[in-house]
């Protein structure tokens, strides 16, 4: 799923490891999200949205829209 996660992370100067710790997932999971190898669950998508204080659809493109 196309997303702006890497851009948002880099803007804040965070590493994948730091973002993973903030979200409660592994660095591999963050990397998989950024490289579109994993579509997040709704729960994880909402956690990411809360962390960056943005709506989910600002971070993840809706593939059905």
């Amino acid at each position, binding site marked *: 799923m196309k997303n702006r996660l890497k851009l948002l992370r880099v803007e804040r100067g965070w590493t994948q490891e730091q973002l993973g710790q903030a979200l*409660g*997932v*592994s660095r*591999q*999971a963050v990397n*998989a*999200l950024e490289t579109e*190898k*994993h*579509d*997040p*669950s709704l729960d*994880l998508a909402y956690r990411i949205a809360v962390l960056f204080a943005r709506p989910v659809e600002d971070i993840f493109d809706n593939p059905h829209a």
Partner: protein
Amino acid sequence: MLDLGKSNSSAHRRYVVRTLAFMSGYVAINVAAIFGAFDDIGSPVAAWLLALAVSAPVVGQIWATLALMNESDEFVRALTAKQFILAAGAAMAIASVWGFGESYAGAYHIPAWIIYPLFWACFGVIAPFVRSSR
């Protein structure tokens, strides 16, 4: 076993400890058997107890793999489950072909426990090609 080279999560650390513990027991029992520790087993009950003792670490290691999936984050869980399912399917397919080869084509007999190392061999071949949870 799983390739954990780039991971350091607590779930992965528990997996490594559990796998090493179970495999230590497995190796110890088999080394004892190779050196004749169980050569004098006479009764069927004792023989079955030995069979259960050898297979218990294998069951434990399978549990450790399933526990890793349960305790990991959603990406590692999905990826490992996908690799596990594909490897199990490949191992069952190979075992079925060989089994019917035994039944109909005179292939020599292979003990059923070979499915366990066969599964991990399939896992090792398949895992590098399965890097996406989708």
